[in-house]
């Protein structure tokens, strides 16, 4: 596995008429990892992905996928990537298994179609025509079509949109199996939990730009502060507590006897708080550390809720 990034986007600009969908976007995708492009509807996720897939010609900037120009080198690139569109892509009269078999025939060394159909729980509807499949089944077929050619890199545009929780888990498992076998995965999502649970690397995008990129842990640690809460005797001397804590920490009694400390909450700070409580004869009931979620990070970066 090479250490070169599999996707390199620099200063990408894409306009539709007067609307700028992508506005100077930079993105690097590491080989062998799952990278989530996270953002609200209209943030430019699909435009970015579809530019990488060779569907759109950039108005500015450069895009390299597996070292190739997706438009100029399309013939060389297409056999090496797998693509799952946000919707459609199948003849309405084609049967699920028939379409998958067809995609397999376009590749030199495809996966076993029967096994893939079973793996994705499409066995019961293999003879059903596409237009009669449920939304979830259509999604899983599109996913199967993206991986059947044994690609090095797959682009999945909202792979779990409209899936029930069980099918969602099953899709996540498949994505993890792809990664374990050395396939690089780029997916777009507007689900926080999907990015948090699945991705090695998350690019938060809004208004056509990357606002932050890093592992979910890095993103959560970096931006927003974390919180420590406990309850105890009312009217504790918070001035004395603050003196024991590192600079930049804050402490407040929110309601009677309910305390909140914000700042860099690490094991040392926790030890300091509990030892201060011990010195002052305070039992800190319900002591809890609240880690910030990607949701908080996103709110802080963009000033908006991800899902309205």
């Amino acid at each position, binding site marked *: 596995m090479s250490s070169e990034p599999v996707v390199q986007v620099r200063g990408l600009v894409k306009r539709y008429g007067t609307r700028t969908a992508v506005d100077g976007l930079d993105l690097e995708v590491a080989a062998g990892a799952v990278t989530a492009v996270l953002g609200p509807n209209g943030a430019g996720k699909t435009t970015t992905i579809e530019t990488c*897939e*060779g*569907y759109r010609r950039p108005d500015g900037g450069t895009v390299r996928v597996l070292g190739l120009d997706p438009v100029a080198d399309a*013939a060389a690139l*297409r*056999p*090496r*990537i797998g*693509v799952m*569109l946000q*919707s*459609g*892509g*199948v*003849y*309405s*009269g*084609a049967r699920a298994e*028939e379409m998958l078999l*067809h*995609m397999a*025939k*376009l*590749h*030199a*060394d495809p*996966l076993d179609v029967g*096994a*893939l159909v079973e*793996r994705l729980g499409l066995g019961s509807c293999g003879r059903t025509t596409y237009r009669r499949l449920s939304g979830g089944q259509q999604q899983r077929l599109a996913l199967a*079509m993206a*991986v059947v*050619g*044994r*690609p*090095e890199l797959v682009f999945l545009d909202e792979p779990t949109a409209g899936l029930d929780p069980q099918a969602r888990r099953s899709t996540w498992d498949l994505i993890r*199996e*792809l990664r*374990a*076998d*050395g*396939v690089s995965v780029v997916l777009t999502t507007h689900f926080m939990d999907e990015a948090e649970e699945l991705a090695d690397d998350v690019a938060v995008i809004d208004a056509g730009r990357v606002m932050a990129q890093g592992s979910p842990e890095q993103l959560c640690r970096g931006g927003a502060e974390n919180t420590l809460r406990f309850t105890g005797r009312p009217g504790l001397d918070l001035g004395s507590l603050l003196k024991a804590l590192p600079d930049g920490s804050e402490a407040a009694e929110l309601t009677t006897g309910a305390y909140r400390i914000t700042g860099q909450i690490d094991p040392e700070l926790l030890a300091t708080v509990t030892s201060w409580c011990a010195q002052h004869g305070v039992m800190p009931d319900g002591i809890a550390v609240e880690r910030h979620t990607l949701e908080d990070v996103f709110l802080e970066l963009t000033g908006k809720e991800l899902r309205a």
Partner: protein
Amino acid sequence: MSAGTYTPRPGAAPLPRMIAAQAALETRMLLRNGEQLLLTVVIPTLLLVLFSAVDIVDTGAGEPVDFLAPGILALAVMSTAFTGQAIATGFERRYGVLKRLGASPLPRWGLMTAKTLSVLVTEVLQIVLLTVIAFALGWSPEGNPFAVLLLLVLGTVAFSGLGLLMAGTLKAEATLAAANLVFLLLLVGGGVIVPLDKFPDAAQSVLGLLPISALSDGLRDVLQHGAAMPWGDAAVLAVWAVLGLGAAARFFRWE
């Protein structure tokens, strides 16, 4: 599935295999579609049988089937290469099939080649069926089979260009409506079952320039009258082919 199942082994299948697979799939889709079969098989067959058996239209001297069979063959070509292909391709565009295949190893020209092969296979099936029925109705064709073949091929190219132009520029529903309307109008006004000389002189000269008129008239010259290659009709078809394919290549949108 066990570890290593998804280990990358990317690569395109050999081009002839991809194109053959695509053509086979397209043909299956067409033969599975009831509306398409109505258009390409049922209507031409019914018209051939009905108008040969019942003297509704004055087809001039001779057996009605000798007049009708060439026109119905022209209609068969139009139904598959133009109407059927326009509607199918329009909906493939609408449902993202063309888009998805655009990201597969099959190049676009390979997809178009496969579509053409699928049209040709369907036409062969139509022509075999209609020829057998026409013989059963007492058809006695004349002329050079190679002239017939050349006209059929030129007609196919001309109608394909126009069908793809429509499918690649209009919305799928508009294509559906327009392709059926054009089919109906050309069926009536293109010398298929109604001889063009039933129309006023001024109309005739315009109608004669339609691709369906050129094809049905050319086929009739050869098959009914035993004429040599009708170069005038072939030229009309060639002009339509160049205009249609040129415009389709210029304006076709894949999404």
